[in-house]
């Protein structure tokens, strides 16, 4: 047995079998959702064990599409997500640059307290946060979803600081000799050199913002302002009820664009999400 000689090539069938069963468990609910969404309600109720739709129908999709305004929800989610990502990238990189490279009084203490706030997830502060947002007049406004998310991201600052610290100082010194100040150095030397980091933080932030549910649920009242997850949650009682097929059609409408984006950019997304495991403390 040369078992230890070439482990990279030897992939025991048992490993594939185990991973395959796991993969099936992960994918099966999605397939089941697609199948259910194209069944008639009659079939679902009369033959609960039948998997294949007969007759195949797209009526559930038109019903779900008519029940709520998905295009509006998509627009809301897209522009909120874009502003949160843009704001997070700019302010996180700025703060990270200062913490990594500028010598200012209190920088260590501020950085420590700042990182420690990661121990305070929004769920813990939701009631007083709601009251602060109310004081600002941001209840039932997208500002409540954009500004706090864009302006408070300790993990993002931590991650960007790691990237900036790995840059050679000579890069900035060359810029300074050319007469560039901190701002110009930041925009023309630092930012272009931490693009991989910005991309990773962008992906992590976008996924978080896109799927966020708790804060939108608490602060938004008008259906016109709903994001995709919040719009989808309307199907729980109000529109869905017993219409299981329509609920699955609505879920499909809400999921498919994200999954297509994943298929296209899976390498970047997986590499970025791996970075969310880098210790924040």
């Amino acid at each position, binding site marked *: 047995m040369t078992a230890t000689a070439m482990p990279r090539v030897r992939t025991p069938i048992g490993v594939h079998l185990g991973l395959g069963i*796991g993969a099936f468990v992960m*994918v099966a609910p999605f397939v089941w959702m697609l199948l259910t969404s194209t069944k008639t309600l009659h079939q679902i109720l009369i033959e609960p064990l039948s998997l294949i739709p007969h007759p195949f129908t797209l009526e559930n999709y038109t019903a779900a599409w008519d029940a709520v305004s998905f295009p509006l929800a998509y627009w809301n989610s897209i522009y909120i997500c874009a502003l949160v990502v843009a704001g997070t990238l700019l302010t996180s990189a*700025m703060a990270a640059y200062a913490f990594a490279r500028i010598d200012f009084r209190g920088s260590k203490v501020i950085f420590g307290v700042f990182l420690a706030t990661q121990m305070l997830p929004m769920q813990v502060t939701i009631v007083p946060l709601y009251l602060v947002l109310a004081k600002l007049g941001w209840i039932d406004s997208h500002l409540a979803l954009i500004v706090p998310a864009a302006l408070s991201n300790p993990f993002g600052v931590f991650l960007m600081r790691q990237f900036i610290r790995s840059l050679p100082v000579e890069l900035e010194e060359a810029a300074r000799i050319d007469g560039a100040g901190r701002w110009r150095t930041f925009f023309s030397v630092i930012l272009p050199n931490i693009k991989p980091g910005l991309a990773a933080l962008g992906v992590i932030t976008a996924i978080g913002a896109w*799927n966020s549910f*708790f804060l939108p649920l608490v602060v938004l009242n008008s259906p016109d302002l709903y994001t995709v997850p*919040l719009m989808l949650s309307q199907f729980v009682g109000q529109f869905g009820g017993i219409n299981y097929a329509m*609920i699955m059609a609505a879920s499909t409408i809400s999921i498919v664009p994200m999954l297509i984006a994943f298929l296209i950019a899976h390498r970047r997304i997986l590499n970025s999400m791996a970075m969310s495991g880098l210790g924040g403390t």
Partner: protein
Amino acid sequence: MPGASAGQVGSPELRGLPTWRRRDRLHGYVFVAPQVVGTAVFVLIPFLFGIVLAFAKWDGLTTPHWVGLNNFSSVLVDPVFLRSIVNTVLIALITVPIGLGLAIIIAIGLDRIRGRTVYMLCYFAPVLTSSVAVSLIWQQLFRADGNLSEAFAKVLGIAPPDWLGDPHLVLIAVCIVTIWSSLGLNVVIFLAGLQAISPSVLEAARIDGAGPMTMLTKIRLPLLSPVIFFSTVVAVISSFQTFDTVFILTKNGGPDNAARTIVYHVYDIGFRRFEFGLASAASVILFVLTIVVTLVQMRLQKRFVHYES
């Protein structure tokens, strides 16, 4: 102009410095300002405000008045809240070891395998799916008259389990959904950790005659332990915040409140009954619980986590 007034203004500690150093310090504050001010306004101030609120009775409209420790004493004898604490801790105890354990096994399986990408596409898809969609799909799967329960019943020869209607099963249902939807993220993180292990270390061990099992228990897992530790801390904290799944899957915390979590309870009394003081007291208790558990983990880390020197 800034150059001319350089000698007169500024704090004493700035006074002896050359002008550019002083301006540079200012730059430091300006650059950190958006994130630091944002975090102060949207995290730190609400946190401190919440602690104050926990000692008051307030519905958001009338004048608040102080009630001392009343909120805490009434919340801590409320059987529904105590149930939510037990449920929250149970969710952490079930989902963290099983979820991370499965993720470690899967990551080890994926570490040196062909066709890794296809597997990763499968495992990661639920992570990208919003908790609402995930919960809606599983709500249908869990239906007593649905495919899963019927198949379950056929195979085991029992009555179809009513996952969401049975107080003994609803918490398990929440845990299943939680593990299913977060597994892929932990797999990605662990896989990255395993792949970061330098091949020369593994090669050296192989030359020393280490078999695959020894390599795993003596080299790969110890080298992965810092990542496992960090993921455990994160997973515990996030399981303490379980809300979305309970909100969608169950009606009002499930039968007998069997799936009501602390955050669900806070939402219920804060935003349905508008008892802001009471809800804040419950939040403070959640925070204390989170901190204590995290500190205990930090303590334990010294014993179990191996850091490369």
